[in-house]
């Protein structure tokens, strides 16, 4: 009696998913192929372009931005300079630029997709009820799993890396946008309505400016998740620092792996501080 499971056949869940993925991959090839090719080429030239800029110039620019973003203090600027010089010194500059361009593009796409979805959620209870569990699912599924359909759709390289990153990194932006807009005090919303604002005017002139700090916090999270995904995506051939870590792992080369990992940490800290100071800065006069 206790072994009743033996009498039930294993549900072919995995083959359903495989079939479904295969079907999508085939039916939308007309969409995926150009994305893979055109977008992939564009990405590569962008990354190459970034990598072609002399490191000194990049470091200088970063230092100046860091100085002003942190309210004319030297801490972040000094850290950025030292960190970037170290990466350069270790011969990982090109990898750093590749990783950075992947993070940048993935995050931008996440924001472009995530903010409107968040707005939709904030405006419609139904949308919120549907989207919230989807977001939960997207975030709790181990990140590696997304690599599989990514490969099925876009084979290997940068594009599937970005695709996987989109799925993994977009939820915080959506959530925080929704939260930020819902948090706007009812009286302010009423004020906007009472003066005869249209829905769009209310959104752009009142709700989004009020929610800005919260949305920026979400974007900060998205960027950090995108970075972690970009590293994982090296498993499907995304170039950059992650790939160095991976190959060191395969060769059990602790030293090289550590150095590449350090590069990732440096990139992460700089990106984190940058996006954070954006959100704080915009928040000051609120």
């Amino acid at each position: 009696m206790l072994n009743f499971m033996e009498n039930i056949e294993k549900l072919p869940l995995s083959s359903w998913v495989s079939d479904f993925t295969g079907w999508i991959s085939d039916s939308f090839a007309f969409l995926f192929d150009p994305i893979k090719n055109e977008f992939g080429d564009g990405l590569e030239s962008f990354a190459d372009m970034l990598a072609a800029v002399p490191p000194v110039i990049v470091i200088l620019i970063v230092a100046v931005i860091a100085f002003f973003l942190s309210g004319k203090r030297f801490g972040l600027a000094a850290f950025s300079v030292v960190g970037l010089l170290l990466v350069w010194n270790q011969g990982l500059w090109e990898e750093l630029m590749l990783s950075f361009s992947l993070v940048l593009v993935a995050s931008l796409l996440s924001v472009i997709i995530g903010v409107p979805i968040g707005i939709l959620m904030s405006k419609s209870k139904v949308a919120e009820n549907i989207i919230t569990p989807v977001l939960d699912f997207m975030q709790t599924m181990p990140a590696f799993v997304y690599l599989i359909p990514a490969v099925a759709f876009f084979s290997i390289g940068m594009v599937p890396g970005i695709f996987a990153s989109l799925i993994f990194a977009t939820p915080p932006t959506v959530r925080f946008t929704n939260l930020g807009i819902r948090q706007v005090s009812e009286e302010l919303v009423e004020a906007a309505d009472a003066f005869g604002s249209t829905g769009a005017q209310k959104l752009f002139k009142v709700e989004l400016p009020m929610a800005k700090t919260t949305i920026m916090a979400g974007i900060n999270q998205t960027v950090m998740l995108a970075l972690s995904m970009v590293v994982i995506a090296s498993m499907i051939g995304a170039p950059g620092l992650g790939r160095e870590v991976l190959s060191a792992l395969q060769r059990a080369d602790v030293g090289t792996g550590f150095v590449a990992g350090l590069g990732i940490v440096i990139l992460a800290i700089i990106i984190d501080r940058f996006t954070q100071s954006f959100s704080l800065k915009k928040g000051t006069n609120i």
Partner: protein
Amino acid sequence: MPVIKVDGLSKVFGKNAKQALKLLEAGKTKEEILKQTGSTVGVNRASFEVEAGEIFVIMGLSGSGKSTLVRLLNRLIDPTEGHVIVDGEDLATMNKKDLLRVRRTKMSMVFQKFALFPFRSILENAEYGLEIQGMAKEERSQKARKSLEMVGLGNYIEQYPAQLSGGMQQRVGLARALANDPEVLLMDEAFSALDPLIRKEMQDELLDLQEKMKKTIIFITHDLDEALRIGDKIALMKDGSIVQVGSPEEILMNPANDYVEKFVEDVDRSKVLTAYNIMKRPETVNIEKHGPRVALERMQKEGISSIYVTDGKRNLKGYVTADDASTALRSDVTSLMAILKTDAPTVTKDTLMNAIFEISHNSPVPIPVVEDGKLLGIIVRGAVISALAGQGEVNLTHA
């Protein structure tokens, strides 16, 4: 013609609105309906009219439906039933486009917690209503500035709301509402978040502004003192219903029911009643025609010990006492001029009771009520005391 006409307006929060309406009509109470249907009655078949240029105060305890009612007026809340007719148009049934137009041009709102946009400067806040109408930057700036100057904030336009005190913030709220020159101003507990001194100052300022602007103002408050100070008319709400509408004096003197009575019980009458409310028609003698003999005769007939003296145009000249008049008579003085006393303190018809009370205490004669030098009436000390005690005859017609 009334600017706003509210007719059978109801709002039921919750799912079974239609059923709740039926129960309301069957005379069930708000509580019974909540128990039976799970729906909350916000406003229960309210009907009233507001005349142009009037400050119409809606007053009631917490939860009585004031905020809901005022939000039904500009349809921030959709009514369940009934009509809100503004300038001949029914807001309850109009389409979105018309509703936007009405909100932009005819009605503005001032909020309890100010509801200023924190990321916008004072000027930009005041411009908001004009900005969303698509008015050019220059023009709206100018209008917003003018409106800010009107509330005394001309020097603060570059500041941000967080930099201003509560009273100043609410002035911005007022300026923002006035910038698009609406006919109707809706004010939901606009001064309730301010401390008492500032609050009184704002009340005075609103009255000053109203002198100049003559807007139609719907003012919500739960404070009877405030209602009496600024209201031309007061509507009292209870459990979503309007239980009485009237002038401040009517509400105070003739409470429609126990609820109203309880509400007004602890009002300090001395702050509300004026000289006009308690003065009496004076006995007088005419200095041009009458002498001590007539004066004495009248005093004896009326049983009073002094009498006021006027000229033919009722200009107050002074008073004479019975003692002086009989002395004069004995020494053959024929003119009242010789015994005329002019030391009686006068009041105007708007002097409040508490001030009169002070004066009547020290005055040997009834207090003359004077306007432009003319004698309107007199106040005897007994009338002051009985009015303060909530008894006695009170003149309720509007001055």
